[in-house]
């Protein structure tokens, strides 16, 4: 096995295990911390795919900012398993079965898709993910969608300020 394969399987196992722990943990704070571990594993995958910029931005934005705010809210609400209503076991079982069916459907769809046939992920090669090329593509080919996204962000910011000002 090459280094990349070892790293790939390690990161995949970490991602799947952490994702399961997010759901299984009784304490919401633990769930948030496991979710941060998932983000780290996913960022590791991005690095393997030579998309370093995406990897680090994923960490800064999701693990560094959004999850901190999540943690804020959950810590201040002081949720715990005793005071929160617990779902019945049959409800949980039904959820697992329907979720599993959905997963099966997704996998079969992706496997049968024509575009995916015979394609392999490029590991540690290709330079589209490097910040220089990404920036050039974003500001030349995709400049209009990029600007529209920034307008969307601005409107979200204004909306947040308006909601915050109300009380």
């Amino acid at each position, binding site marked *: *096995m*090459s*280094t990349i394969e*070892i790293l790939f399987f390690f990161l995949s196992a970490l991602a799947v295990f952490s994702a399961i722990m997010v759901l299984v943990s009784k*304490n919401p*704070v633990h769930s948030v*911390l496991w979710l*941060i571990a998932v983000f780290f594993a996913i960022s590791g995958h991005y690095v393997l795919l030579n998309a*370093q*910029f995406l990897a*680090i*931005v994923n*960490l*800064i934005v999701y*693990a*560094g*900012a959004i999850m*901190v705010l999540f*943690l*804020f809210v959950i*810590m*201040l609400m002081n949720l715990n398993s005793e005071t929160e209503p617990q779902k019945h076991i049959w409800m949980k079982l039904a959820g697992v079965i329907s979720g599993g069916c959905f997963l099966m459907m997704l996998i079969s769809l992706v496997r049968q898709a024509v575009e995916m046939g015979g394609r392999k992920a490029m590991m540690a090669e290709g330079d589209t993910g*490097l*910040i*220089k090329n990404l920036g050039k593509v974003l500001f030349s080919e995709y400049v209009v969608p990029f600007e529209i996204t920034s307008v969307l962000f601005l409107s979200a910011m204004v909306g947040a300020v308006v909601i915050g000002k109300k009380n």
Partner: protein
Amino acid sequence: MTLLAIDWILLIEKLILIAIIVFASLGIALYTTFAERKVAAILQDRPGPNRAGPFGLFQPFADGLKLIMKEEIIPNTANKFLFVLGPGLAMTAALMTCAVIPWSSQVHIFDRTIDLQVADINIGILYVFGVVSMGVYGIMIGGWASNNKFSLMAALRGASQAISYELAMGLSLIAVLMLSGSLSLKTIVDQQMAPGHLWNVAYQPLGFLIFFICALAECNRTPFDLPEAENELNFGYHQEYSSMKLGFYLFSEYVNMIMSSAIMASLFFGGFDIPFLDESTLAPNLAAGLGVLALLVKIVIFIFVFMWIRWTVPRFRYDQLMNLGWKKMIPLALVNMLITGAVILWLQGK
């Protein structure tokens, strides 16, 4: 030597480098605690610690020994795992920054050229930024797991302060990146070393000022040490901690100071550049050694300024801190960014 498709010699070389850098940082941090007390003493016109060894030089070891020998107390209600994880995370995040700092140029040993930088990644500054934003978790987890209202309040303060000042910090960095056109710290330092090019602080005085203030806030140093405001919060987020776990929290603050000084030196003050000296005329190994010394001198000067500020400026009120961060620093950083962009465009057009 290749086994499992891994270059083992490179791996060992990097491991040794990491070990040296980590232990050197910890050693400097050890003596920074001593320097802090001495600087405080000088500024307040008293002798300071002078009992252990000549001039009190063994004081940090005595302090460390004391911390290790103290009884370990884990509060009964605390979440045990997270309670222990908190200080560890704080320390890890503080030390992780050193991976991308270029400590000097190359040295040549046994026909191998070794870069005195653990990893020269092309997103160096963003990596530093990511690690800085992880530093919040150590404080938050520790404060929450203590199950103490004061600790939780201090932790939330620390986290919101760090997030607020990260924004201005990032914006002031963008101006530097516009100048250098690269995110790699090594490239930024090399550009400042090039003949005919001044240090970045000459082009970005305002940017440096903003970065410095934000660095103070990120390290939770006075006047921004609201998470540890004794008169409001008893002791801060590490109130329930004892023994070496407390030591880790206190220590990580000093490691953070060293790392942010190193980053500031690299970004704005030429990194391992020796002023008024052309390094290429020296032997490579000698130049590398002198480079490390130059960077260390710059770090020590920054740390002294950190301490000087701590013992002269009083603490802000919390609303003043937020006002300064959101209403003064961020607009100022935006203006700085705009001016830099405009000047660069104008120079290109000429």
